[in-house]
């Protein structure tokens, strides 16, 4: 009998618990001190504390996680994304403990884990790569080489991912500061401040290919995801399929991704990230994420393939059931990442207790979330607290559905990026599908939609509440009795002030 330990937290731990439960496997959660009441702890069959809030003392502690695996009798460990997901030593330690690591072999993590190394492997495998340096550089080398590649240039952390340790530099005089910041962030995030330089391909889209391989050498791809809507190099929303990818291009990119995976002996789920040139034809390999991706649900929604269940089966040595020719892309899916950040105030992180929560549902809507009413969003972990995913018959259908789902979504107590997504769904550039990785940061600001007269509605609301506030104050001075104001208290479900 299998038992699955999930070495993660948040929505992805919940996602993996759901998949395991649907396969009939008991689940084991791990949690830090601040996560005792987290949703993944509540939903798992077993749960064990692995240390204090900082990840370095809990979710990154290989020893403690393996200890829990031993105590609980877990047979498999799924790392999710982030934390130890792309840590070769962890994958190896899991295998050494006689357990199944739900992910690729350590050798593939190693081969793809360093961007410089993976670049060389891809060049050898005939997969196209972005022009740039291909080695870890000293500060002097960075300063000397950058002007030759030409500005804008990207400083990237070899061990990096998700935009951490990455800096765009537009002018030579900014190079030194940016380099220091990138190294500091890389050192902090990955314990490794090695960096390299890369040409910034402008007008480019970020398009990635999902691959799935088994331990018997079969590798297929599940098509692309469009990830160009980014802010500070963090993806904000994703689509499947990409509005920029034709069936012919999908086939070429898919073949490149499969070749990349095979070149490093890959199995399990993985994602090859590509830059797609503004010409819509050329693409360049950026990196391979050797793990489950945040945005995997859009692919699941249009292909009908449950990627997490496949990962679990593959880890047990099962053969891939889906053949490349069976993969079909039906309809269109969009994912909005819901971050605990304030879009009206420079996307500052927002922490605190969720005082009210209403998630959208109904046809074609999926929410992968770690929230519940009463849950405390802490400052220790990633600000992404939920994902809203919809599927429609086609892209316009999906956009309309996303609009209605976003309109239904209520999260009170913390600020979230829901309003950002509501604006994006109304923007011509998004609706048309013509956007690149620079759109969100360079051409978008949170502004009100004009002409809806909502300022008047806001004035009415605030005045009614102020009036009630005042009346309450007056009432406190008046003798207690069957006063009209008493009936208009602030109790839930009560009419206000009228």
């Amino acid at each position: 009998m299998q038992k699955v330990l999930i070495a993660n937290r948040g929505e992805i731990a919940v996602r993996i618990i759901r998949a395991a439960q649907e396969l009939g496997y008991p689940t084991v959660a791990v949690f830090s001190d601040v996560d005792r009441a987290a949703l993944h702890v509540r939903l798992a069959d077993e749960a064990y504390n692995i240390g204090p809030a900082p990840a370095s003392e809990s979710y990154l502690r290989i020893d403690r996680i393996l200890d829990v695996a031993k105590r609980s009798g877990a047979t498999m460990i799924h790392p999710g994304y982030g934390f130890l997901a792309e840590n070769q030593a962890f994958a190896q330690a899991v295998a050494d403990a006689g357990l199944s690591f739900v992910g690729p072999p350590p050798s593939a993590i190693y081969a793809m884990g360093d961007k410089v190394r993976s670049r060389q492997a891809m060049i050898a495998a005939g997969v196209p790569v972005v022009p740039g340096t291909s080695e870890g550089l000293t500060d002097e080398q960075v300063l000397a080489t950058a002007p030759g590649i030409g500005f804008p240039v990207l400083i990237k952390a070899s061990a990096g991912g998700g935009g951490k340790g990455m800096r765009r530099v537009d002018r030579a005089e900014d190079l030194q500061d940016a380099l220091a910041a990138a190294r500091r962030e890389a050192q902090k995030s990955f314990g490794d401040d090695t960096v390299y330089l890369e040409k910034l391909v402008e007008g480019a889209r970020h398009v990635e290919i999902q691959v799935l391989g088994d331990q018997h050498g079969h590798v297929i791809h599940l098509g692309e995801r469009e990830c160009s809507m980014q802010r500070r190099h963090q993806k904000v929303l994703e689509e499947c399929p990409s509005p920029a990818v034709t069936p012919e291009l999908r086939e070429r990119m898919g073949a490149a991704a499969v070749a990349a995976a095979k070149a490093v002996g890959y199995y399990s789920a993985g994602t090859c990230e590509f830059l797609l040139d503004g010409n819509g034809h050329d693409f360049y390999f950026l990196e391979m994420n050797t793990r489950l991706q945040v945005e995997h649900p859009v692919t699941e929604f249009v292909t009908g393939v449950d990627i997490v269940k496949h990962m679990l089966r593959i880890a047990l040595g099962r053969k891939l059931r889906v053949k490349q020719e069976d993969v079909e892309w039906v309809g269109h899916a969009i994912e909005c990442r819901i971050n605990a950040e304030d879009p009206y105030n420079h996307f500052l992180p927002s922490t605190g207790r969720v005082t009210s929560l209403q998630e959208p549902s109904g046809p074609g809507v999926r929410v992968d979330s770690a929230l519940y009413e009463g849950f405390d969003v802490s400052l220790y972990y990633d600000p992404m607290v939920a994902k809203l995913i919809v599927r429609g018959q086609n892209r316009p259908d999906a956009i309309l559905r996303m609009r209605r789902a976003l309109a239904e979504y209520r999260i009170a107590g913390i600020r979230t990026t829901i309003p950002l997504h509501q604006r994006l769904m109304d923007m011509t550039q998004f609706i048309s599908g013509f956007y690149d990785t620079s759109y969100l940061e360079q051409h978008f600001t949170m502004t009100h939609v004009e002409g809806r007269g909502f300022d008047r509605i806001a004035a009415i609301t605030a005045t009614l509440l102020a009036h009630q506030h005042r009346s309450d104050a007056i009432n406190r001075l008046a003798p207690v009795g069957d006063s009209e104001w008493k009936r208009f208290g602030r109790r839930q479900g009560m009419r206000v002030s009228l």
Partner: protein
Amino acid sequence: MKYKATVDQRDFTLDVDRPGELIVDGENVSVDLMSIDGENLYSLLVDGVSYDLHVERREGLYTVIIEGDRYTVDVGDAHLKELIAMSRRGHEEHGGAVIKAPMPGLVVKVLVAPGDAVAADQPVAILEAMKMENELRNPAVGIVKQVNIVPGQTVNMDDVLIVVAPPEVETVDSASTSPAAVDVAAPPEPAS
């Protein structure tokens, strides 16, 4: 009972008199406001049009979110306005700007020291939260009067981190920092 409500520099005059009715800038409207969760969520019907609202009250201002649009509303009568003006003067005694922590976090770097002259928009500190570095910037030109933080320190939301005095002695009227800017405090820009 007459109120004046200011929404993003636009003024509305509202008369609350009979239950279920309101006169907005001379126009009669039927209104029905219900609390949904006893806290932030409300349902409002205005002449039959349905709005599902998120409302927060902070320092006397109402923040109303309608379909993702966020509005800050200042409601008051003459007396209230005066009180607010008084509280603003209190703020301004602190100097050019009071830079508060916009969220809980860890101080990574402090970029200024007392006595430094600082330009508007100049970074003054780097605060880390949720694994991201956030640059805090100085909102208006001035002289650093006070620095309350050191690297490695954990701060709570709204802690006063740095106080900046105006560069020259100015009259209160010419100090052009808006009250909103002081309240929200030093909106930091993303690190480039």
